[in-house]
């Protein structure tokens, strides 16, 4: 429920701010005995489930931890062992594995932001009506994405629960916070990533307020 995350994109399509409000990414933990019923494969140096959905573990989920030790890509965070090798060896069983949806890296977020920037433009180009804006609301069965582009070309994006109301107001409020705490900060240079504590705290505040009000309306 509520607001999942927000993105701010500058007029060139570069990501200048990102914040995850609720990270309720599904996770599933299970102890396995040898042989492992799941089929795993390597995708972009991450271990991904390729076959064998069970107990909340879904195809497409990545391996997050082995015996409680978190993974960094395909390697253990503690000693850098390859998790694929650990899983392959029968003497390591029973083994406890934690799976979940892939967490986005900063690079992936930057890429997604510029991807949306282009989709926004194509959405406007393919319009069957004159003078159409780009994508303003995008709905899926799990979340909705709402985008507000200012007259100067900055895009504010909120990813929220499909039933969340008042996102429109939140976007305007975010614009105000941006102009108050990023632009009026003399150390902030335009179109660059926003790193400013005051901005962070104020943004969180407007998100929380809007979440409370939004859910009250449902």
């Amino acid at each position, binding site marked *: 429920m509520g607001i*999942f*995350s927000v993105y701010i994109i500058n007029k060139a399509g570069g990501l200048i701010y990102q914040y995850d409000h*609720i*990270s*309720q*990414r*599904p996770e599933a933990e299970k102890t396995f005995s040898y042989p492992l019923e799941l089929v795993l494969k390597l995708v972009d140096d991450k271990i991904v489930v390729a076959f064998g959905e069970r107990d909340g573990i*879904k195809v*497409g989920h990545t391996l997050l931890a082995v015996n409680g030790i978190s993974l960094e890509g395909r390697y253990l965070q503690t000693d850098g062992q390859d998790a694929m090798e650990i899983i392959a060896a029968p003497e390591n069983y029973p083994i406890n594995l934690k799976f979940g*949806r892939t967490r*986005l890296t900063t690079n*992936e977020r930057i890429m*997604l932001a510029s*991807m*949306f920037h*282009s*989709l926004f433009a*194509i*959405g*406007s*180009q*393919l*319009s*069957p*009506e*004159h*003078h*159409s*804006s*780009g*994508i*303003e*609301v*995008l*709905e*899926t*069965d*799990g*979340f909705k*994405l709402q985008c507000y582009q200012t007259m100067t070309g900055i895009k504010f994006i909120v*990813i929220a629960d499909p039933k969340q109301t008042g996102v429109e107001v939140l976007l305007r409020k975010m614009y105000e916070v941006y102009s108050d705490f990023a632009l009026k900060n003399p150390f902030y240079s335009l179109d660059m990533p926003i790193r400013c504590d005051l901005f962070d705290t104020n943004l969180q505040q407007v998100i929380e307020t809007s979440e409370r009000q939004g859910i009250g309306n449902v």
Partner: protein
Amino acid sequence: MTVYSLYVFDRTGTCLYYTEWNRKKHSDIARDEEFKLMYGMIYSIKSFVNRISPTDLKDGFLNFKTNRYKLNFYETASGMKFIMTTDLTVGNIRDVLHQIYSNIYLEYVVRNPLCELGQPISSELFHTKLDEYVRGLPIFPTRIS
């Protein structure tokens, strides 16, 4: 309420069928280029949505809105994509797109031995039936402006 256009793509990205009703603006590119752009956009949105989503999705992308139009998307398990652009007052029309698939496409294209699958649909019958169905919908305006 009004319906602008309908695109049907097969899973390889070939535009099987395109038709329009009250479309006001045509993009400045050639028709087949527009199909490619539309397919490319949908393909990218699907991948974008799957990656940015905080949760696991079942159907994935459903529709998007700009300040002027709404694009509704329906994909079958076999990868056929039905895209209908309408104005903003139109609600959820997944079932309409499903009807087009199950009652019209299936009936007059898949069960028609003369229609080769994976090729653009040239069947006159399909065209008439589709046109009839869409014009009969409550979301279709009775008076065409």
